[in-house]
């Protein structure tokens, strides 16, 4: 049985529908991210799961029991969840230790156990030496660790994280990403993580739900989300890509200036019919050659380098296939140097091309 299930979850503020019929199920111990641009409804969804907002339609179930539905919302304090907030919300009037012990004390645990578990979790997040400090005396990263400890120590049924890293600087953010995943591997708490940063979602999650305009566009494991995006939005939002508009007819996809055989694609496409089709081609999936490569069954197009940018880790080329209006972005290793205006041969890998709705 799934731990947490969202069924047709909807939230409207007046006429504005912020979350639109979201369906999602989390298994026990699973880490799922809600990923999307700001305003896509991910935080609203999270706050409905927490019980701070009442859904307009749909329901939230935990362990098979409805905990949120229109007109009936179990209050947050009775859900046995915990949450990490964007502002950390570390109480400035309590020490680190008091912050962490707060939830345990509310559960009326014996003070001996409160002390032991607080000490243990502070050890885990490497904050033991600062237990007596007040939050104002801590750095952003340290406050973040306190927030993590405070949320985990109560062994919640579900852990909710609302953009917890957005206030940290880049290096610390990367460090805390792995910290969050490490804690998840250690405690296996069912987790919903809200973020707009795809790298964050990729590094931490078992599965990612990409949200746009209140809807979930695709839920998948991170690498499939990248290689097999299902919608135009997901293809564009996760990494960079070339979106090619074509036309499917008689087992072939006609693109501007060239064609691809449907049979070569890894994606299953119903061959029948004559209809428009959209392809996502990642810059990393194409290779540039100075001379025509030996035939290996893959499509090769003669092209010309139109622009280039050196990014350190790679070259970012824009090439124009001959007899085509297309401009394709292609990533190449640092040592593969082509001048602007050089003729090149562009090799595509049909298996890495995704058909997008």
């Amino acid at each position, binding site marked *: 049985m799934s731990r947490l299930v969202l069924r047709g979850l909807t939230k409207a503020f007046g006429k504005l529908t912020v979350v639109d019929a979201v369906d999602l199920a989390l298994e026990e111990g699973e880490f799922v991210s809600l990923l999307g641009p700001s305003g896509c409804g991910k935080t609203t969804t999270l706050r409905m799961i927490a019980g701070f907002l009442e859904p307009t339609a749909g329901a939230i179930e935990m362990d098979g029991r409805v905990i949120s539905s229109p007109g*009936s919302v179990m209050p947050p304090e009775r859900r046995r*969840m915990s*949450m990490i907030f964007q502002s950390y919300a570390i109480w400035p009037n309590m020490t680190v230790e008091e912050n962490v012990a707060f939830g345990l004390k*509310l559960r009326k645990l014996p003070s001996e156990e409160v002390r032991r578990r607080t000490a243990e979790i502070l050890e885990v997040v490497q904050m033991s030496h600062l237990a007596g400090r007040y939050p104002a005396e801590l750095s952003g990263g340290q406050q973040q660790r306190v927030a993590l400890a405070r949320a985990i120590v109560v062994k919640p049924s579900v852990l909710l994280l609302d953009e917890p890293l957005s206030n940290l600087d880049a290096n610390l953010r990367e460090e805390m990403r792995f910290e969050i995943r490490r804690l998840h591997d250690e405690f296996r708490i069912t987790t919903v993580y809200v973020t707009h940063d795809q790298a964050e979602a990729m590094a931490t999650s078992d599965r990612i739900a990409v949200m746009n305009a209140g809807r979930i566009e695709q839920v998948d494991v991170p690498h499939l989300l990248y290689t097999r995006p299902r919608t135009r939005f997901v293809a564009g939002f996760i990494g960079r890509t070339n979106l090619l508009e074509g036309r499917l007819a008689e087992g072939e996809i006609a693109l501007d200036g060239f064609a691809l055989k449907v049979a070569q694609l890894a994606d299953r496409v119903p061959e029948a019919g004559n209809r428009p089709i959209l392809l996502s081609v990642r810059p990393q999936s194409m290779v540039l050659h100075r001379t025509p490569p030996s035939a290996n069954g893959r499509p090769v197009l003669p092209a010309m380098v139109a622009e280039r940018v050196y990014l350190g880790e790679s070259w970012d080329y824009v090439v124009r296939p001959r007899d085509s209006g297309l401009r394709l972005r292609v990533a190449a290793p640092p040592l593969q140097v082509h001048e602007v205006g050089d003729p090149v041969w562009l090799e595509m890998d049909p298996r890495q091309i995704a058909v997008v709705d």
Partner: protein
Amino acid sequence: MTPSASDGAAMSGDTVTVLPRPAAASRAGGLLDRLRNIEPVSLLWAALAAALLFLVAAPLVKLFVASFETQGTGAFTLSNYATAYGRQRYLDALVNSLTLGLLSAAISVVLAVPMAWAVSRTDMPGKGLTWAAVLGAFVVPPYLAAIGWILLAGPNSGFVNQAWRWLTGAEGALVNVYSFTGLALVIALNSFPLVFILVKAALDLISSEMEDAANIIGAGPWTTMWKVTLPLAWPAVLAGFILVFLETIALFGTPAIIGIPARINVVTTQLWQFFEYPVRVEVAAAYAMPLLLVTVGLIAVQKLLLGRKGFVSQTGKGGERRMVRLGPFRWVLFGWCAGVGALAVVMPVLVLIQASFAKAWGRGLALDNLTLRNYALLLFEHEMALTSVWNTIWFSAAAATIAGAIALLVAYLVNRRLVPFGEVLGFLCMAPFVIPGIVMAIGFYAAYASPPLALYGTATLLILAFTARFLPIAYANSQAAVRAVHPEMEEAARILGAGRLQSIARVTAPLLKKSLLGGWLIVFILASRELSAAVFLVGPRTRTMSVLLYDLSEAGNFEVLAAFGGILLAITLVLVAVGMKLAGRDFMLRRE
């Protein structure tokens, strides 16, 4: 007294503990269930709305209605307006009020702008002293300053004139406080802090780069100040001017103490005369209308001035500020600040203290003139003095507590969006800001003095009036305090298992305590010196210190009067000191 803050917060939690009931219980309940869920907050909303209507709206409406009523019968009439504007003397009072307001505001600007510029932008020495002078002028009640200046600049025995005669051998007086200019100066010397606070806040926001930009294309420090810095602060100067103008036209104490002997009649003193036996509330209501309309209009203008973004440079970045180097001229500015401080605070307070320990104040400092009799008289013999001290303390404390509780509840409901139309409550809380105290007092008198409530002469009437009068200050303070506590602070407690009440008690209340205490003290201090509303509403047994001071000033016994003023000042200073200690050094002068 102090826990008022947390009490208020806890109360809100109690009544706000809303809602949601466990899912299993009811899905079929539908509408009924929903009603049950919303009820507690709605009840609180209704209770607050009723309280605010009673405190704010009803007196105003009654004031308006009464101005069209015939005394006794309540029949519709226009004769009140005919009476109120039918005599040259009454019209003169209107003109006098406006002229006095303009003059006092102009003098205040002249006094305060150089001080604000010096403190905010220059390397003038003695900034701490300047701050002390501003705070001092803010703390000394206007009517006490007025009495001090009577002792200083009375035409015959005022110390300044005595000294002048002694120095020059002249016969006449150098200065005469019993004149229109004298009155305007005394008011300005007490009101200039309003201009100072606004202008300094505006100057603080102007980054030095603005001035650098002028310097680099060839403007010297003076040109820069005149052409760049001051124009940027211009809206604040104007706003300060308006505030002092409004303060002046609504002021009762100073015009009554100085103006009446000098035969200068203004609107407030004329209103007072309408309240002499037989009381003509209806005429007073009609006569108060211009005061109300001018205030509402000018506050709107002032809001517009301060709200125009982009004019006052409100850039957050590049905000580095360096002080303008003045060279020897900094001593001139220091002299100016010190001079204002001496005239506004040091001299009047010193003569008051001197008089309070004197057998006859005119004889000055002499060993055989010293006595404690004035204080002894007040503390042990005077039948009303101690009662009035007690009245003042408990009326002010009650008003500060009620205003604080209402303000906190409303601020919390509005900020956390717990009820629809919360802004209506916020608006009602802020509304008294545009009602002069004296007008509000007449409204309270008209609405609640006579039956059915018959509150005339009761403590309740005064407490309610003080509550209404200072509600905007309490509300602005509560709003800032509540806004400063991130809602996530509470949510973090709730998700860990604390109910709404519990999370407010454990998290929100401790975080709000300090700033709410500051707000409570400000209201207490302002209420404890309030005169213009109190003087209309007190009965024989509910006299406050301020009203008793005014009574004593009519009797003309300046030594006892000064001693009583000394007691009031001492109480105020203790409270200010407590406030500074607990709520921060600038708790009274913070610009909201």
